[in-house]
């Protein structure tokens, strides 16, 4: 997996030419008032350039806030679903909430399209539940593997 690769193997290499280190250098030039609350790192540095601790605050930020601010705390943020549910339980009827402006299900019957070619589909394979529009496509369906079937169905959020 790419993320693992970047974690273990190329991390050292990445940091050597990471723009973050260049940014650290640029910050030094730009800042007028150095904030003395620099937390020194205990990690043995892999490269000389990354001597700057990452929690270096920017000059325009309120220093008092930083001490108990968001970045130093690992706060777990609510995701949208949780926020929507909370809003639903707290709001009264008739009020506009984030969930209330969601588009409703369609009134007109939906048109079906083939999963293979995208043409209008008149038939559905009862075994795999895939839609097809002619016999050539049906033949193709018979040859495809089950994970492709699952993938094609997932494309329109249907299950096998």
């Amino acid at each position, binding site marked *: 997996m*790419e*993320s693992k690769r970047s*974690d273990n193997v190329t*991390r050292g290499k*990445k940091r050597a030419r990471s*723009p*973050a280190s260049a*940014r650290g250098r*640029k910050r030094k030039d*730009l*800042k*007028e008032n150095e904030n003395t609350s620099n937390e020194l*790192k205990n*990690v043995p540095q892999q490269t000389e350039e990354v001597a700057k601790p*990452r*929690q270096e605050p*920017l*000059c*325009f*930020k*309120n220093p008092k806030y930083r001490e108990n*601010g*968001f970045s130093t705390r690992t*706060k777990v*943020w*609510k*995701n*949208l679903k949780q*926020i929507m549910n*909370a*809003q639903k339980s*707290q*709001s009264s009827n008739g009020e*506009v*909430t*984030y969930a209330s*402006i*969601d*588009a*409703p*299900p*369609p*009134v*007109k019957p939906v*048109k079906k399209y083939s999963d293979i070619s*995208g*043409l*209008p589909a008149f038939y559905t394979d009862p075994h795999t539940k895939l839609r097809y529009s002619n016999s050539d496509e049906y*033949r*193709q369906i018979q*040859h*495809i*593997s*089950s994970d*492709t079937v699952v*993938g*094609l169905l997932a*494309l*329109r*959020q249907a299950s096998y």
Partner: protein
Amino acid sequence: MLNLYTCKDEQNCPDVLHEYEAQLQTESIPLIIDNGSYHCRVGWATKLHPYLNFKNVIAKNRGNRKEKDWDIQVANEIADLETVRWLLRTPYDFNVVVNYSVQETLLDYAFKHLGISTDGCINHPLVLTEAIANPSYCRKQMSELLFESYCIPKLAYGIDCLFSNGYNMPEFDLPEVGLIVSSGFQSTHVLPVFGKKADIKNCCRINLGGYNCSAYMQRLLQFKHPQLVSELTLSRMDEVVHGLCHVAPNYQEEITKCCDIGFKDKHATTLQFSSSTTPSNIKTGNILGGPLKLEKKLKQAEHKLYELECVIELEQESTEAAEKVAADAGCSSIKELKEKTELMRDNIQAIRRDLDEQYRLDKVATGTVKCGIEKCQAPEIIFQPSLVGYNQSGLSECIEMLLENYSKEVQELMAKNIFITGGNTKIDGFRERVVKDMIQIRPYQSEIIVRQAADPSLDAWRGAAKWALSQHCNWMERKDFEECGWEYLKEHNFSNMHVATKSTT
């Protein structure tokens, strides 16, 4: 005639560190931030263009959590998004900001690149865009972040599509009566305007946007070309959707046309990738069945056929023995067995044909993808969400439904004042499709006028800038929040409605 399109694969250039001009400092020029799920546009209200226009993402390499050494790259510092695709974090969940740590990092980046160097605060009023019906909880967190961390003097929130509409009117203001269609990265809204104010109660949101078009395009092409799965990246799909896709005025007609081979050859585009950077992962399973798999199947089928043919030969020698073997094979009589062999022969012919087809396709240059019907399929999801399994009405149905909420006179006025904005509407043929669908909805020969924003991506920012400098502007100050709490919102024509959350007992 081959239409060839080579993917440009443009890399991001890091943003320039702008100079903090003295004039900006002394006059307290408002800062305008059009905070979108796709791009964030930041700039000064007096300028014509935003100074910064960057992708609203950061790449956070977790590294060693204990030692807290996170390698963070922000926005345009990331040269190629695909290399860090799995590390990307965005403050957004769908079209609403929920992660304020990431938002803080992005705001730091924006302010730093504008050159702001004041100590401990930012001395400029701020205008920020938000989603329609943004939950109060989210707004509260955002206000708190801005006032506590950056100590701004004044703040105002607004809705991006309303700003865009106001900007595109002869005099900066919303129309008396109108209908706004705003299609963005994550969502598409249809918002009626009534009495120079947004009628948010009657707004409609389809949970599909430019991102879904690109993702759908990617999966369609990946299924048809499994050997090129790693080449078909989301960044390339963005490029393809923006450049090549078009919205069909009549979808059914367009796709039946695409079947015709003559039409396909003339209109299909061949996508070419400049260089294969990563080795292609051979995906097992494919619509036609990969050549290796088909070969295997063919072998098995031929083997079975041979067995059945042996039985038929046996019949010529001794009928009894043949019948016994037929029974073993699962056939009640020899006649049935013969029929079965015929079927098997046909099957083998079919597999052979498919295999030939597969080899022919493989002979075509690898690293090229033919795009025919997919060019119409991807943008169609906004009009038919059922294509991707979403149980929502399409854009035209939403418009029809919303118009029903008003009287006939108002409906007529709205139909004459439809405004389209948002980056996703820049797809070829979007406006024409809306016109055509409106003609189907509205009474015979009634007037329909559909206008598109001059610059669908940037007009929201420009509208906000103009609003900030005008007398319409309605600022909120820190003391307002101290009196009324962080959920406070001053409503104005371009903003959301305030929805109070009841305190839980």
